[in-house]
């Protein structure tokens, strides 16, 4: 009985959007399948599970929700699975940096823009870090010194935003640098602490503790707005260099999903991002809130993908 009232209220909402009445009246009336293209504990996993928690707590989805981790091939397996559910409105997945980079690297049948876009919710951005005991005063000082003596900058992986952000920065600020690629976060951090590297690109959540203790110093933030936990650190844009490259944390449906389903999800996400749980997720994970919906999200993915491809092709990382 209670479920039925719930369905009715959701239906009222969906039909309010003035979409095809037949489908709108029946959507959603099946179990929702959430595919996480990575293992538990990663950024995608946390975003997906947070979304599910919010949908359940605020009773935004009337039926059951099943969450599955389909890890493998840097996301190729999980997103490939969602890609194969063409037209099925009962599958959703979240995106991350690999959503853009994996198709550039491997022969995936899909591109980031192949899916039905729902919303970009936030971006994951990076901090430019130096050793706490190094002589760098601030980002200006760093760039000036870099122009005379090219620094080594470490980051995670070669086909990754960790490489693209300093690369674009160096082109705009006119300096050269050696990029040192790492496989594991721990080794990247000790490389900076042991004075092997001049600088490193770090994920805010994972380095805050080392910044707070003074072991590392944050020079600049690559996102639109510095998170509160890094107050006082300028964004690259504020420092005069608009890099404009971020990893998208968003929501997608399979390709060719019905228009009504896409609009139902856009309306629902508007409610999700207004909840206190969502605000808490953004602060706790040090993300930059950046909300755009539907086709605009696809435009963002297209620009990001092209930006990545240009830089990576120039460096020889991809063909």
């Amino acid at each position, binding site marked *: 009985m209670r479920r039925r009232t719930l369905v009715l209220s959701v239906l009222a909402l969906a039909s309010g959007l003035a979409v095809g009445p037949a489908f709108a009246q029946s959507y959603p009336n099946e179990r929702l399948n959430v595919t996480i293209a990575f*293992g*538990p*504990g*990663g950024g995608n996993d*946390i975003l997906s*599970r947070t979304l599910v928690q919010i949908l359940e707590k605020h009773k935004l989805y009337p039926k059951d929700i099943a969450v599955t*981790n*389909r*890890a*493998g*091939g*840097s996301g*190729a*397996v999980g997103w*490939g699975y969602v890609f194969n559910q063409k037209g099925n409105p009962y599958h959703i997945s979240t995106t991350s940096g690999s959503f853009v980079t*994996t198709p550039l*690297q*491997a*022969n*995936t049948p899909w591109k980031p823009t192949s899916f039905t876009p729902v919303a970009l919710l936030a971006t994951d951005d990076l901090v430019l870090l130096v050793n706490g005991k190094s002589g760098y005063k601030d980002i200006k000082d760093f760039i000036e010194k870099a122009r005379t003596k090219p620094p*080594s900058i*470490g980051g995670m*992986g*070669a*086909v990754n935003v960790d*490489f693209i952000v300093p690369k674009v920065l160096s082109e705009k600020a006119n300096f050269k640098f*050696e*990029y*040192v*690629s*790492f*496989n*594991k*976060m*721990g*080794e990247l*951090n*000790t*490389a900076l*602490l*042991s*004075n*092997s*590297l001049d600088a490193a690109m770090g994920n805010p*959540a*994972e*380095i*805050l*503790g*080392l910044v*707070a*203790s003074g*072991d590392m110093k944050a020079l600049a933030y690559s996102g639109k707005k510095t998170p509160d936990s890094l107050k006082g650190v300028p964004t690259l844009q504020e420092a005069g260099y608009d890099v404009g490259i971020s990893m998208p944390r968003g929501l997608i449906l399979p390709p060719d999903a019905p228009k009504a389903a896409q609009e139902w999800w856009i309306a629902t996400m508007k409610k999700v991002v207004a909840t206190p749980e969502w605000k808490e997720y953004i602060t*706790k*994970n040090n993300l930059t809130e950046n909300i755009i919906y539907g086709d605009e999200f696809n435009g963002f993915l297209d620009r990001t993908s092209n930006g990545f491809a240009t830089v*990576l092709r120039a*460096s*020889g*990382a*991809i063909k």
Partner: protein
Amino acid sequence: MDIFDNLLLGLAVALQPINIVYLLIGTMVGMFVGIIPGFGPSAGLAILLPVTFGMEPTGAVMMLAAIYYGSMYGGTITSILLNTPGESATVASTFDGYPLAQQGRAGPALVMQAVASFIGGTIGVILITLLAPLFAQVARSFGPPEFFMLIMMGLLMLVVMIGENWRLGVISTLIGFALGTVGVDLETGSQRFTFGSAELIEGIDFIPIAIGLFGLGELYYSFYEGLHAKGSGGIIQYQKEKRFWPDLRDWIDTRFAMLRGSLLGFVIGVLPGAGATIASLMAYSVEKAASKTPERFGKGMMAGLAGPEAANNAASSGAMVPLLTLGIPGSGSTAVLLAAFLLWGLQPGPLLMAQNPEFAWGLIASMYLGNVALLAINIFAIPLFVLMIRLPYRILAPGVILICTIGTYAVHGSIIEVWLMFIAGLVGFLMKLYGFSPAATVLALVLGPMAEETLRQTLTISRGSAMIFIERGVSLTILLVMVAIVLAAAALRLSRTRARAAGSAPAVGS
């Protein structure tokens, strides 16, 4: 007295009934995922991580950490009974563990590994309690040049275990290095030998290869020998008259091996990177070098099992040091723990222990209890495992193949890796038939890519100059230690040949 106060605080937290329950769940899950080949601590952690979302962090971390070190106990059981290491850290335990089981001493070997694990784990926690801040300094002095030197040391140890037939050993090692080149080239991002397959981008994983080469290879070999037709018994002999408990000589033989293994394991475990694998290899080599009868290693020496076992457990304690004191994960499993810290709203980093003493010291205190619990679980469970190997071989063998397949598939859910495992099984059988060294292949597969990565990182940083290895104090120290080991080994061999020559000279004369 600060440490004592902290430890008491930690014990008070750890001894709360609900936390004891979590701890016991963690130890059991750890044992269980350790026993199934393929399923490692990362898999166990990943399964239970979502459960901890709403939990109180201290109880949750006790449970997750127990999965991590508990799996080190379980992992050795299949190394001994089935010659199948569940992870790279227990490869060294197959060298003498499996021969012991083949000689009918599976019971004593299993008891010994449990005791060695307990001693290694406990010495590790004692060192965390007393000296964590000191070892944090060690961890933070390791950059790519130091890691490269450490991995070279690991490869040097590989030479020790290649053994008599060095030609076949070198070929085995090269096969491992070759497999290690598959995947994305870390430095340039270009792909090597992936044939456009997304599943190969991340390279060939250690687990399917190890399970195939060791476990399936051994099974196929026993089919080849016709063991399945022989009724009861199997690859492993079980003799009633050989007692369940290790005898006095075993204890005397291994007392220093455990101590040396524990200390070595902890120090190397503190360093992010290859920790437990390199530690157990080095412990094996140290025992072989220190032994009066090195030629009996690989044929069922208790010390050759106890040393590496103490080392890999001490290393898993050691890996907690950078995690707690710097917020830096040293392995896949501790990276999941770090993600969990963030999920629970904790701030990992140098201030973690000061800001959350109950959390940090509760975890440390729980590790003392967890190791005691694991020892008890092991001692009770060993008779069950021994029963298992008394199953007729024609029943046991298909079961083992099934478990290996499920375990391999469970790691990444990849069918390609299952095929890799079966191919590796065939190759492993041929290697055994013709006297190659599967251990060298597997360890080269683990160490090769790490050596390549760290060397290229180092040379990028130094802009191509190898002088960086000498200019940095820590790296120079490891280099000197390696030179000393090589010289000492050469001198030892020389003096032995001379002694033998001198001893046999009169005989020739008469």
